[in-house]
């Protein structure tokens, strides 16, 4: 993830506290894994300010069922829904499910 984004996220955690924050993603493929790992177990490339920093933030993707059902249906249909046919929703769900399993194991 972009190093400037990592700096900002670190500052937001300091300002608002981990327990109040949620991360929601909108990207595809490998980008989802990189972003999700960065805000949970730390920057996987070990290059940015979140390298080795386990923030453990809750992280979701907007196309996950548990997220999209919480959003206003008309807004979702107008601006997001088409991307269900474009992004690999199965892969996104698997990536995040695996990440959550690993997080739970680390407890």
């Amino acid at each position, binding site marked *: 993830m972009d190093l400037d984004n990592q700096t900002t996220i670190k500052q937001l955690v300091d300002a608002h506290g981990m327990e109040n924050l949620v991360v929601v993603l909108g*990207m*595809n*493929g*490998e*980008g989802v*894994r*990189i972003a999700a790992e960065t805000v949970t177990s730390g920057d996987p*490339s070990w*290059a940015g300010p979140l390298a080795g920093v386990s923030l453990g933030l809750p992280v979701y993707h907007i196309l996950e069922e548990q997220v999209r059902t919480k959003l206003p249906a008309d807004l979702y249909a107008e*601006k*997001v829904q*088409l*991307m269900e*046919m*474009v*992004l690999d929703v199965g892969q996104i769900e698997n990536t995040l499910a695996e990440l959550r399993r690993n997080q739970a194991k680390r407890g």
Partner: protein
Amino acid sequence: MVPVLRAAVNTLVHVPDLVRYGSKPFREAAQPGSFLADLKARLRPFGEVAAYPPHQAFIGNLKPEALADIPSPWHGHPLPGASHQGPFGEILDQGTFYSLLEKADQFGLLMLDPGWSPPANGASAAARALMGAAGKRGAREEILKRIESGEALPLEDRGALIGCVRRDHEEDESLAARVLLENMAAKASGAHALRLLLEKAHLPAREVDYILSCSEEAIGDRYNRGGGNLAKAIGEMAGCPNAAGVDIKAFCAAPVYALVHAAALVQAGVVRNAVVVGGGSLAKLGMKSHRHIEKQMPVLEDVLGGVAFWVGPDDGASPRLNLELAGRHPSGRPSTPQGVLEALVCEPLARAGRKLRDIDKYAVELHNPEVTLPAGAGDVPLTNYRTLAALAAMRGEIAREEIPAFIRSHGMPGFAPTQGHIPAGVPYLGHALAAMRAGTMKSAMVVAKGSLFLGRMTQQADGASIVVES
């Protein structure tokens, strides 16, 4: 006057020793660690760069669709007997390019070692036409002194110091050494693409009336960072004495905007022959190099790209640039992939009573996926084709299960270097021209996007499209 696309050219310049001056490598190298040494160990020799299948597709020796039949990784499957010259492009080597940089420099910014000379037989006819007498050469001690003082950056050829490029003002950021090197690289590679266009199309240089540069560099000074008009500098260097020009700035969508403007100027009779030219982006070299190094791959972003297009009045043989089908993304529209592609593709087609499948090929941002995938940046053309196909399905123009077939027949694998504006659909125009002249294709739509939000003046995305048809 019906505007037609008379000719298209794509060029690459292999500059392994300039990768370190790309924005990302330059920042990485400033950190403690072994980045620069790791980078150098993963740079490719010219032969490998020339035989790399996406590059062969870029200069026209291979159809883009044929890349799908080459096993992955493409860098492990060089094309046997590949030439660095193709029907509508060529690949220059670094030594020749340094000579072009020397010619591009009118202010003594570049200082090469008197002992250095360009390779005797590497230069093509187009490059030779641009090379002049050697510029101001500096004594070795002077070059070293300038580098030591921090006013100049070292220039290397195959790892050996051969000169330096200096700043032209101590405090003006726009005239810093690296900025000037970026600007000169865009100028020299743009002039090379234009010169090759003139030769391939047998267009006399004096018949070029107007040049639109879609290069990414802004050119300016401290009072005016994006003052511009690289177009005129490129035209002068390429020897077009009757050409004025202007720069079109629109992030990565600029080449398509430039084609629309060129076609409009020709259609309106303002000029007879307009040329669109884009020089390479030095800042984007090695953008994903840290990931390539991590994955023990060659550093694939080691080439500058160049494009040039001749837009002229109807010659009875060339395909038309159909301005009625030009698409744009107004600021009141959503900046989503759907909002952008509806504005650029669906609406112009609907105005003409056409469907998405009526266009033979769509040329979207044709970034080479082998560069982006290892960096977690996805397969950009494939994602865009999926969005297009999903739109066609949503509009009931194709069935949902026809999406993969739509992508296969109307799309193509990405084959362009990740040079920002260069992949913006336009590298396909050389292939489209060849297919239309052979009678195997009727229409192609070029669709480019621009990420305006990166400049922090708006949250908007942008884009432009145009149709070429026989």
